[in-house]
């Protein structure tokens, strides 16, 4: 004889898999996140590597007035495009078209002022809403260097050491390694990566509890010779299986995308191996089961299908809160973080992505914290189903 909860599980799964809408949503969320992530990263990498490949292209109005400056720009791999004089709106349009990150305009009196050693004006037009800060910075550096060179030459001609112009010298040291820099970014995307645990089983959890009650078949089911916990367990595992399938697929896909992308181009690393991934997936099984248990318990107690749906949508946001708070308060990874479901999975993946050896303890804690929470949720749901108040409401 098959165990009763298994009978319920098989029937609910069969019914769910026949519902095209639920399956469609499942597929959408499973594939959407990794692909979105890949697309975003791809764009970032593309932008970061672009200037090195092509160099910067700058439109210059009146380039003939400063041949030395133009020569220096060209030396620094900045392509100068000589442009006809134009007014402000025309320049604005040129920038908005994103053909040039920067437009330089030399004033009419540039040559006279330069020769008379008065400040000769060079206008630097740019669009700060455009995200080409590094290219703009490059042009600015060339301009500053050129100005400093000319100033030194003039001072020397007056018998003053150019060193007087630089009372302090700033030298920059960046101690951030690739790994720690990427940890921040990866940490922010991890919160999303585990969200399907709460999404994939949701509509099914509502359908097989509040939905079954609303379709008035719950009473019949409860009148069968099966214990409340057997029915609840069957339903819980149904939602759990879907969540596990969704999260595992999604993590594998995300891992494939992240390992395939040239993340080192933007100073990030994804040091996870396939073995690590299996560990992460196994550690997230209880998270999925906890999500399913919580959803079953909440949806069962909702007065209607609609109420169940809205309650669960709110409940879905709750597990995101710890992750957001941690990143806002910039807390360092601590042992207690492995004791909070969801947060523990995010922390685990983040630490593993950094490439360090984290040992068995955090994995075990991640596993147990969710497993205990799941058991509590299912226990509550079973107790609830046995109560008279629930019987009266079906």
């Amino acid at each position: 004889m098959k165990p009763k909860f298994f009978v319920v599980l098989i029937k609910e799964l069969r019914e769910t898999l026949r519902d095209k809408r639920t399956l469609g949503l499942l597929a959408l969320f499973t594939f959407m996140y990794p692909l979105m992530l890949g697309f975003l990263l791809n764009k970032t990498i593309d932008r970061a590597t672009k200037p090195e490949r092509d160099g910067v292209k700058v439109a210059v109005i009146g380039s003939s007035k400063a041949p030395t400056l133009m020569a220096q720009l060209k030396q620094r791999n900045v392509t100068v495009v000589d442009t006809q004089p134009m007014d402000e709106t025309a320049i604005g349009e040129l920038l908005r078209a994103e053909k040039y990150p920067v437009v330089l305009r030399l004033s009419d009196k540039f040559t006279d002022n330069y020769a008379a050693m008065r400040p000769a004006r060079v206008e630097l037009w740019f669009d700060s809403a455009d995200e080409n800060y590094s290219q703009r910075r490059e042009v600015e550096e060339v301009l500053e260097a050129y100005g400093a060179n000319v100033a030194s030459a003039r001072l020397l001609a007056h018998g003053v050491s150019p060193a007087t112009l630089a009372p302090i010298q700033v030298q920059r040291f960046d101690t951030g390694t690739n790994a720690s820099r990427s940890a921040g970014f990866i940490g922010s995307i991890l919160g999303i990566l585990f969200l399907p645990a709460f999404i994939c089983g949701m509509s099914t959890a509502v359908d097989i509890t509040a939905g079954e009650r609303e379709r008035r078949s719950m009473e019949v089911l409860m009148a069968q010779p099966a214990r409340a916990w057997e029915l609840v367990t069957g339903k819980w595992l149904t939602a759990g299986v879907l969540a596990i399938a969704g999260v595992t697929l999604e993590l594998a896909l995300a891992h494939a995308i992240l390992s395939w992308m040239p993340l080192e181009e933007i100073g990030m690393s994804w040091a996870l191996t396939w073995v690590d991934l299996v560990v992460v997936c196994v550690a997230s099984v209880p998270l999925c089961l906890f999500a399913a248990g919580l959803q079953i318990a909440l949806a069962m107690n909702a007065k209607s299908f609609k109420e169940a749906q809205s309650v669960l949508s709110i409940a879905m946001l709750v597990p995101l809160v710890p992750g957001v708070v941690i990143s806002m308060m910039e807390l360092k990874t601590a042992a207690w973080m492995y004791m909070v479901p969801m947060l523990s999975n995010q922390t685990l993946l983040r630490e593993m992505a950094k490439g360090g050896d984290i040992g068995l303890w955090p994995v075990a804690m991640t596993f147990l914290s969710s497993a205990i929470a799941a058991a509590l949720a299912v226990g509550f749901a079973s107790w609830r189903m046995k109560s008279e108040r629930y019987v009266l409401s079906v």
Partner: protein
Amino acid sequence: MIEVQDVRKQFGEVKALGGVSFSARDGQITALLGPNGAGKTTLLRTLIGLLKRDHGSISIDGVDPEKDPLAVRRNIGFLTDQFGLYERLSTREYLEYFGELNGMGGPTLHTRIDEVAELLAMDDILERRAKGFSQGQRIKVALARTLLHRPRHLLLDEPSRGLDVMATRALRHALTALRADGCCVIMATHVMQEVTHLCDDVIVIAKGHTVAQGSPEELCRRTGIASLEDAFVSLVGTEEGIAA
């Protein structure tokens, strides 16, 4: 054999059952008559152990549903006013599900499903999914589920509702066969004609109390009224009972 002795049940201030006593014998079809809101649903739920009584005793073949609800349910076919069909399952899958929940399985279950389908003349819908079933087809499927595990007791809540003439006949035929088999059938109904044709015993409850128990003829004789319907109204004590 179902024996109920002075069962009372209260929900907060509301007294759902104020003292119900009756006995339903094996090999008989017992009608449960009562206006809407008389406490029939509460009574049936108490009988299968979904609700706990506040007072009194219940024995179903000697078993108390409060002490061993699973044993009682294994031996009861329960048809509520809702059929509890699943739209995305075919009739056969539906019956397999409930068969397995009742501990059946394998070839025994398959033969039994075919048997029940033949008994209720529903071979044509056996492989179809429940979506789009007519009322009559739905109640047939639900009835098949009720009979599937060969329960010795049947609790039926308005089983003939929405059935056409042919289906009603099939139902009546099935119930007679079950009675001949020695099953104990309790049937809540509002159709007096059915009661006179089919039932050996009648229990009348009103406002949570048993008002009378006896054969239809006995009830008519006791009230001195020839038609069972009028006798029922007189026993319930108010015209509103039926209108409600």
